[in-house]
């Protein structure tokens, strides 16, 4: 049983603006977000002695450390992937802090994903890596983008659950409604109508353009330290109550087509089992959630995997208004990655911190616990963040 529950806390967070063209390097973005997180926490950047980021981040830990003036790193590492890794750097940081390996760990994700490379572009397989050996049986059938690969899994979800395009629209409208009130969101002031959703062009059936996350430039960072120390710093401590990774049998990167059940839910369910077991909490204890939305429709199996509704019932849960601010479980109050920005889920972590502090734009009343999840259909991760009470 994991024993780092509530031993580590997020003491500060920082972010750059979210755009389609940042006009500066990814190292500059990472540095800005990291320094903002240190300032928010009220620590001197020289104290950062650990770094945890994603394998998909192009900024090496030592370069970011030099850029912010860290004296010496004792712990540095990257966790697997991009979107599936969204919460895993927090887990690594919490373990490092709880064991005394490091005291002040910076987690960051910085990317010029829109202006420099665009994940939405076709994947090109060349070297015979483990990923590319699989791609040979997917890419050559024309599934060369994340949208196309996940579309197949979500079509099966529709078949099994009875969810329709209108149900997917219901999520997209909520995300854009939340974003419309968030000045930091790319789609601030731009809600969508049901007609606009259905009129948006089809990318890979069943995904419309308005089901797809944005492609964004920007960076987010958090500072993780011991709960004890966080209590003495500038901001209220946001405790890392539980954190988990999940990669059960049959998991593949965006194409786990060879299991009996290909709905992108198993990885999240594996993380969920650990989270609820180690925290002693249950879905009912969450006042809100950040559910990963690389593609909006995957929020439905996400809600089911983490136990907020039975399998196949998320469509009704959303239709009944539960996930809006004012509902029983507001979801993606920042506008999600459809509405705010796509920073591989790190912007969702920052939103959870704001909600627990009580400083969010779309503030939910009396937030004690927030579930934050990472991408589905890939090896994944999740975290429960809690108010210090």
């Amino acid at each position, binding site marked *: 049983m994991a024993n780092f529950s509530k031993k580590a806390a997020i003491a500060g967070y920082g972010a750059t603006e979210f755009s389609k063209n940042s006009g500066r390097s990814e190292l500059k973005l990472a540095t800005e977000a990291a320094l903002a997180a240190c300032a928010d926490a009220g620590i001197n950047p020289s104290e950062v002695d650990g770094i945890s980021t994603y394998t998909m981040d192009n900024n090496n830990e030592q370069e970011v450390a030099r850029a912010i003036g860290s004296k010496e790193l004792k712990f540095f590492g990257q966790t697997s992937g991009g979107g599936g890794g969204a919460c895993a750097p927090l887990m690594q940081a919490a373990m490092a802090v709880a064991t005394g390996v490091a005291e002040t760990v910076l987690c960051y994700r910085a990317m010029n994903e829109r202006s420099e490379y665009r994940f939405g572009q*076709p994947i090109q397989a060349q070297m*015979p890596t483990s990923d590319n*050996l*699989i791609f*040979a*049986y*997917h*890419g*050559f*059938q*024309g*599934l*060369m*983008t994340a*949208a*196309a690969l996940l*579309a*197949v*899994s979500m*079509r*099966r979800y529709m*078949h099994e659950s009875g969810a329709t395009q209108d149900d997917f629209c219901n999520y997209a409208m909520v995300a854009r409604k939340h974003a419309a009130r968030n000045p930091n969101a790319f789609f601030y002031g731009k809600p969508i109508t049901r007609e606009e959703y259905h009129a948006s*062009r*089809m*990318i*890979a*059936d*069943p995904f419309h353009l308005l089901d797809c996350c944005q492609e964004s430039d920007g960076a987010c960072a958090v500072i993780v330290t011991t709960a004890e120390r966080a209590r003495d710093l500038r901001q209220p401590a946001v405790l890392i109550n539980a954190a988990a990774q999940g990669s059960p049998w049959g998991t593949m990167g965006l*194409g786990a*087509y*060879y299991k009996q059940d*290909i709905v992108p839910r198993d990885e999240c369910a594996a993380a969920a089992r650990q989270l609820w077991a180690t925290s002693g909490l249950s879905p009912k204890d969450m006042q809100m959630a950040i559910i990963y939305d690389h593609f909006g429709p995957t929020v439905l199996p996400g809600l089911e995997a983490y136990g907020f509704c039975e399998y196949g019932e998320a469509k009704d849960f959303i239709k009944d208004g539960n996930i809006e601010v004012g509902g029983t479980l507001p979801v993606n109050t920042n506008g999600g990655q459809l509405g705010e920005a796509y920073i591989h889920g790190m912007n969702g972590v920052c939103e959870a911190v704001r909600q627990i502090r009580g400083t969010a734009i779309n503030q939910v009343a009396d937030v004690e616990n927030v579930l934050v999840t990472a991408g589905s259909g890939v090896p994944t991760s999740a975290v429960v963040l809690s108010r210090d009470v």
Partner: protein
Amino acid sequence: MSYVSAPAEGRPLPVPTELSAPHWDGAREGRLMVQQCPVCEAYVFIPRRACPQCLAEPLEWVESSGKGTIYSYTIIHRPPHPAFEPPFCAAIIALEEGWHMLSNVVGTDPATIAVGQAVAVEFLDCGEVTLPVFRRVN
């Protein structure tokens, strides 16, 4: 609209390896070849060295009937590569022996495709490689 039933110029093609050669050699001869575990009898696709269920090796190559149903699918509307003319269908086929394969459903208006439809394999000669693809049957 071609519905990918004809080989397109410049379509990216798999490069057979020592491990996967029997699958591609079979396709060239008009046979759909798949691996099967000699111990637990699980069918194994994508080609692997050892059985992912019980780790037995080597796996045996056997011929599939090539008959199955559409387990799930997508219709691609944004061309991922100039050689794929949209809209086209990529589908997971549930073969009747109980294994999954991702392929294309050809010669059918994508708008009429649905989960559960019966399909059968046919072979698309793309020059250096022959691809197994599927077509709806009654």
